[in-house]
């Protein structure tokens, strides 16, 4: 997606010379044009500001703050000249953020575009002085020539540059000369975050707006039978009560049937909800409870699935030594970003405007078009700052609900979910169940047979993404463990009968595949009385280093080995454990081409678990902004710990049991272990880090628990077994 985007950006670069220029008849100096846009990413202004227009959204990860560094680096200008903004979604050009590929994509795709812009201005300086551009020196945004006493700036060369052709190619700044890349810089929004002035979606306002809160059907795909709004309408501030029909799976995004209360303030809208009398037709999904789901998973595991990966044919039983089998399972998890879903929407018959914390703006635009029948020009989508997402804001359901309420009420509407809505009516990280079977001979595994049953996000929402009935999103993460095992067979079953809204979640299936695979490696190591780190390293040496995954990605075993070796050193792996103490290790390779390894240090006294420290080693290519990379690594670890300690979404009669952070707990300050991070130097281009450190955290911790007390955790969360 990203690569294609940048190809089209490159071909458009010269065509869009026309954009933003107020044409003048003749060249003059100082400039007579206000701004000049040589490509889709940059606008050079007369006042010296360089606008950087990206298609990425800020939600705490800071991608744009770091893309600024790339632009400043290639243009050789002071950092504060670069003002970043998010592109307004329109038909042409994708706007959306996800898959941890933001920085990686810009590092590869945007730097060459920045470089051609720089070269264009170098050429312009050459033309201005009638000298060979090769003799131009560019420093801190000033162009000089050895024979000239004056210098010129980007701003003063606008007119000249706008008349020249943008060069097809230009050399990149060499890594040795980096001034910004590789050094820590803050979030651009830091100051506003310190005094509460950064405007999130929830803070958006406009004239005459109403606040809305929706009581939604508690069971997926239930229907509204009847409702009585009399009492609600009497509550002070309540202005209207509006039913919403809800959508099917096939719609742009599923949202349940509901009844919305619109009021002059948020609190009145929420209170009005309590006064509604509603009768639902809960439908067949009432049957969904934990037992039903587990039974369905088990039945599927016992049946036959689709093989999605296999190496050679199965050896006959006589070749096998001892055999080990186990079943693992993982629960549903919620995203629960701290800012609940919300959108301010203003609909009129002439067009509509949305202010929304959504990071799939192009999808939102398509959904708004479908719902309203408006053309591109009639729709304006403003991207606000986002109070977290973890995947939830890839969807657009809340924005469409707000839009429909604005249309029905004739007023601008700010819809805000409550925390309880967020917990009970989310779209969840799918639960799964896994069966593993391995044979071992002479202390080494000879086979690994894996069966995974899981809800499939694709089967539910985009069945056209399935290939021969296989959901590769579920399968691929199991292929990213490069251990040499002669015979492997991986099989999957999609639990399509479980109609619970499923969604991408920071790392999604990489988390659960990581938990299962890296726990299993630990089980195999212990069964042969081998040190788990040494056991892994022994399985990473035999064959060539480069491994192709489904012919698409390349995984480098030497880097996988590298992060494991380094984590051994950093954590003092060989140090003697004290009584009740344990250490566990796990590693991963990811679809965004980074490698990480984690060692967890825990103690288990009686039944009480304490997680003392996590060490993390990362190989993520060129580190662009160490400050923000480290923040992502810290955040990923906390995210995984939050999920694995006490959190799970469970069901009773089709309804989610949990309500809020009280019974769906997130890690607290007190519970947060010490974290030590080591970023490995690398010559590779920048790779992703947003969904990295969470992946090996799960198994590192459970492996450490086994090391401490001999308890093998095969099911999450941990509070089923331990006091945490």
């Amino acid at each position, binding site marked *: 997606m990203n690569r294609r985007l940048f190809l089209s950006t490159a071909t458009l670069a010269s065509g869009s010379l026309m954009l933003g220029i107020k044409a003048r008849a003749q060249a003059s100096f100082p400039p007579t044009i206000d701004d000049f846009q040589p490509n889709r990413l940059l606008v050079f202004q007369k006042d010296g500001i360089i606008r950087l227009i990206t298609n990425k959204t800020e939600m705490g990860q800071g991608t744009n703050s770091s893309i600024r560094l790339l632009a400043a680096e290639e243009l050789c200008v002071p950092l504060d000249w670069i003002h970043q903004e998010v592109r307004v979604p329109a038909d042409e050009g994708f706007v959306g953020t996800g898959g941890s590929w933001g920085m990686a994509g810009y590092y590869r795709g945007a730097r060459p575009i920045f470089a051609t812009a720089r070269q264009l201005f170098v050429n312009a300086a050459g033309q201005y002085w009638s000298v060979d551009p090769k003799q131009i020196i560019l420093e801190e945004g000033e162009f000089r020539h050895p024979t000239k006493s004056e210098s010129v700036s980007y701003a003063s060369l606008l007119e000249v540059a706008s008349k020249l052709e943008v060069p097809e190619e230009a050399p990149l700044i060499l890594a040795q000369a980096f001034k910004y890349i590789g050094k820590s810089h803050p979030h651009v929004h830091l100051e506003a975050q310190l005094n*509460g002035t950064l405007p999130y979606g929830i803070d958006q306002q406009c004239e005459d707006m109403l606040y809305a809160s929706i009581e939604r059907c508690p069971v997926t795909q239930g229907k509204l039978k009847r409702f009585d709004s009399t009492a609600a309408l009497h509550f002070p501030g309540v202005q209207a009560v509006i039913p919403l029909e809800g959508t099917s799976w096939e719609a742009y995004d599923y949202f349940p049937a509901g009844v919305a209360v619109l009021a002059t303030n948020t609190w009145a809208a929420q209170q009005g909800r309590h006064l509604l009398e509603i009768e639902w037709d809960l439908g067949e999904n009432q049957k969904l409870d934990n037992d039903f789901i587990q039974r369905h998973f088990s039945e599927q595991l016992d049946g036959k699935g689709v093989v999605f990966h296999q190496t050679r044919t199965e050896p006959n039983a006589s070749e096998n030594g001892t055999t080990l089998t186990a079943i693992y399972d993982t629960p549903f998890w919620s995203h629960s970003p701290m800012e609940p879903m919300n959108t301010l929407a203003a609909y009129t018959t002439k067009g509509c405007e949305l202010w929304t914390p959504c990071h799939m703006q192009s999808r939102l635009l398509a959904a708004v078009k479908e719902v309203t029948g408006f053309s591109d020009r009639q729709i304006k989508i403003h991207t606000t700052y986002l*109070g*977290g997402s973890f995947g939830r804001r890839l969807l657009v359901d809340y924005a469409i609900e707000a839009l429909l309420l604005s249309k029905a009420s004739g007023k601008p509407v700010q819809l805000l979910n*409550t*925390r309880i809505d967020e917990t009970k009516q989310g779209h969840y990280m799918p639960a799964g169940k896994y069966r593993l079977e391995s044979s071992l001979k002479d202390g080494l595994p000879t086979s690994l047979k894996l069966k995974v049953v899981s809800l499939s996000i694709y089967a539910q929402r985009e069945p056209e993404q399935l290939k021969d009935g296989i959901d590769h999103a579920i399968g691929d993460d199991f292929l990213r463990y490069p251990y040499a095992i002669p015979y492997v067979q991986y099989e999957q079953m999609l639990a399509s009968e479980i109609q619970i809204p499923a969604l991408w979640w920071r790392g999604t299936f990489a988390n659960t595949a990581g938990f299962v695979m890296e726990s299993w490696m630990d089980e195999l190591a212990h069964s042969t009385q081998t040190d788990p780190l040494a056991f892994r390293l022994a399985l990473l040496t035999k064959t060539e280093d480069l491994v192709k995954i489904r012919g698409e990605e390349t995984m480098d075993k030497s880097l996988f080995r590298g992060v494991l070796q380094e984590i051994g050193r950093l954590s003092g792996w060989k140090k003697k454990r004290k009584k009740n103490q344990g250490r566990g290790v796990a590693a991963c390779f990811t679809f965004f081409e980074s490698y990480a390894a984690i060692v967890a240090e825990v103690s288990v006294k009686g039944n009480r678990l304490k997680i003392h420290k996590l060490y993390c080693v990362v190989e993520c290519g060129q580190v662009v902004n160490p400050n923000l990379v480290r923040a992502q690594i810290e955040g990923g670890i906390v*995210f995984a710990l939050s999920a694995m300690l006490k959190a799970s979404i469970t069901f009773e009669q089709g309804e989610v049991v949990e309500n809020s952070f009280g019974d769906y707990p997130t890690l607290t300050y007190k519970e947060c272990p010490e974290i030590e991070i080591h970023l490995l130097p690398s010559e590779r281009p920048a790779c992703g880090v947003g969904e990295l450190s969470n992946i090996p955290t799960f198994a590192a911790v459970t492996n450490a628990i086994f090391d401490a007390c001999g308890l093998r955790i095969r099911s999450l969360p941990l509070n089923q077994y331990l006091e945490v």
Partner: protein
Amino acid sequence: MPSYSLSINGQMHTVEAPGEMPLLWVLRDLLDMKGTKYGCGLGICGSCMIMVEGKAKTACLLPVQAVGKQAITTIEGLSGNNDHPIQQAWRTAHVPQCGYCQSGQIMRAAALLQEEPNPSPEQIEAAMSQVLCRCGTYPRIKEAIQSAIQLSKKP
């Protein structure tokens, strides 16, 4: 509708609201002070943390009728110039990620140091565990609190 005179960040504000309306919504929707955030409305997440007479309180559980003459401080009124020791320490440690919980974190930490300039690790844990962060900024909060304690000691 009853009317209330509130002292917020050293200024008097008059609002008309039902007495049970939580101060959080009075601040956000009636007075247009959006710095205090809603995270749960249940007193669990701490995103709405403010100071009432210098003590940390969750604004989502404080009915406007219970405020009376008590002085309210919100994130908007913590300092004139983003230079409260907590803000300075937060800046140096690059604490915020998405930042949504940070008004609450900063107000909770400021209230702690106001009450106890030299808090023990247990006191810090007890106070800061009242504000949740989904982005995982705890390691940096830990570091920032220590430097804020040092900063506050300087004359």
